[in-house]
């Protein structure tokens, strides 16, 4: 992933960019840190911090023409489900190292052929079962505050997350 201006990131395949310039703080460096340290930890693609919460953002777009292995993308496979959940858990280590202790929300932005809102809600519910919602019941601390699975369009229309627009990269920026 290429970093442009502060807080603007080119996402997978170079077709879209995520503009986190309105965030208090943001990064796409979890992967690099985990990799450089030789850990086996998994990472979410981006973190954006607002006044009220930290947002862990995972992105996958199997709809674009040059998507990596679009036919092989199985959003409901148990391997993929587990992988998305694991990325959340592992990324908490990064937030701890950065001394970030606000409520954490997790968003999986995903588009794939013929996906409907119902499909995304099914996916959300399946992944949510693997996230620490049940584990944290009755505890004083909270590992996760909310989880959503959104299309790019839903992300850009979201009441809070639209502050970080995900838009096609213009020709000049992509080169």
């Amino acid at each position: 992933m290429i970093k442009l201006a502060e807080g603007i990131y080119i996402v997978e395949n170079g077709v879209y960019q995520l503009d986190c310039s309105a965030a208090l703080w943001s990064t796409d460096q979890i992967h690099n840190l985990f990799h450089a340290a030789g850990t086996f930890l998994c990472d979410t693609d981006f973190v954006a911090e607002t006044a009220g919460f930290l947002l862990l953002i995972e992105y996958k777009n199997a709809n674009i023409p040059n998507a990596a292995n679009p036919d092989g993308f199985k959003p409901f496979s148990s391997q993929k489900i587990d992988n998305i959940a694991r990325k959340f858990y592992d990324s908490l280590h990064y937030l701890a190292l950065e001394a970030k202790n606000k409520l954490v929300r997790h968003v999986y932005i995903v588009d794939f052929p013929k996906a409907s809102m119902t499909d995304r809600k099914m996916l959300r519910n399946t992944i949510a079962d693997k996230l620490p919602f049940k584990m944290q019941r009755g505890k004083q601390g909270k590992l996760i505050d909310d989880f959503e699975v959104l299309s790019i369009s839903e992300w850009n229309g979201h009441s809070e997350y639209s502050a970080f627009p995900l838009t096609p990269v213009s020709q000049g920026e992509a080169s």
Partner: protein
Amino acid sequence: MGEAVGGFDQHVHSGQGDLANSKNLVNAINVGNVDFDDTYKDIISVASVDISRGPNNVQKNKYLQILQGITDGKVKYENEEFYLLPDNQVKLKFQLVAEGMRKIALLWQLIKNGTLEQGTVLFWDEPEANINPKHIPALVEILLNLQADGVQIFIATHDYVLAKYLEIRTKDACTIHFHSLYKKEDPVEIESNSNFKDLANNSIAEAFNKLLDEVFEQTTKG
């Protein structure tokens, strides 16, 4: 659902209950003893054409094999009564066969006897009714193949699984239109789209979404 293919010779309205009680029904309708919609009489008549002993061509076979896999048997018309002939079992009167299976068996019979072929039209109200959801993928595969072979199909459904399978299994050669009929004020409005997911007025998806949200609430909030 369905795109015009032209040259319609017959119209088939698929009803399953009528075959179970078909004996003498056509005669009774004809003499005015009972009052039934003509479509019931028509479907009994076309289904009664019994050529079940004849050889099948390759095209028919691909359908019949799938349908037999669901019903575990073939249809037999004998002495003005319909029977299902399960493998290694005695023949069953249609009245004794589960309603969903009768529906599949009727489809088998209409394909077998040549009623459903290129140039015909199939109207099917809620194919999903009384059918085990595990059979829906096979049913959808048959419908899409029939359409590709020149049968125009109209389906009314309230089932997410059926609609979604139709959407995702559609082949390039097939054209599907999803029409949503909904009431805004007084007149019934219609919205059409080639993708089920893109219907804005989609009460089937809305019902599913509401359930999924409730499940999510329970998972996350307890």
